[in-house]
């Protein structure tokens, strides 16, 4: 899976490195959820700057991560959505329910710490 997941204190930072297949999207979802439970994380940042599209499957999986984390008291911040990807998601009507969003990693950490 072309994703690195780092633990930074109470937070997890998942960085997507390249385009993901659906199978890899599911692996990403499950890896984040397992680690949030294992490390008792209170916040997760998912950096999707490397994704050149976010389709219905990716959006639904990110929403599932955010919703599950929320039920466990952890915040999820999706950062780095490319401008064209944001326009396509909006035209499509795709939303990231229960996730916070921020422009980049730095802004995402601010969302978690405030």
């Amino acid at each position: 899976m072309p994703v690195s997941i780092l633990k930074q204190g109470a937070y997890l930072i998942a960085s997507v490195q390249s385009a993901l297949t659906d199978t890899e999207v599911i692996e990403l979802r499950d890896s984040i959820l397992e680690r949030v439970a294992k490390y008792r994380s209170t916040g997760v940042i998912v950096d999707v700057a490397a994704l050149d599209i976010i389709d219905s499957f990716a959006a639904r999986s990110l929403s599932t991560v955010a919703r599950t984390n929320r039920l466990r008291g952890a915040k999820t911040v999706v950062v780095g959505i490319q401008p064209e990807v944001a326009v396509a998601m909006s035209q499509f009507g795709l939303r990231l329910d229960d996730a916070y969003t921020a422009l980049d990693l730095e802004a995402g950490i601010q969302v978690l710490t405030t």
Partner: protein
Amino acid sequence: MVTEVRDEIRVRVVSDADTVIARQAGRDEALRLGFSRTDATFIATAISEIARNITVHAGEGEITLGGLSEAGRQGLIVTARDEGPGIRDVPAVLRDDYISDFGLGMGLWGATRLMDEIDVSSEPGKGTTVTMKKWRGFDEVGSLLGTE
């Protein structure tokens, strides 16, 4: 009206890795034909949805991409073909409130929002062909984003 299709690219779609190949080929072809980055992203996203429909519902199929000229307009045509179970009620699939057994019903509907034209022909037991077109034109959003 004469419609000319040029330089067809074929991608065999069997696994979700092929979906990534098909959508990246769609993006590259769109950019090569002079589409904006925003339109290329719309096209790639729509291809991702219809390619997923092939792997989930039919198991295998094929996506072709080609440049398009019609009445002075330039565009891109995407055709997805499979010999899967087919769609019983095509208009229902394209409606806003459609959710399939897999909860994946957003795919075709999303493609209609992202492309300029879409045609779905399907016969139960014989397969489905989805044809989608996008015309090159002034990209309002792209110019606002400064990506033109």
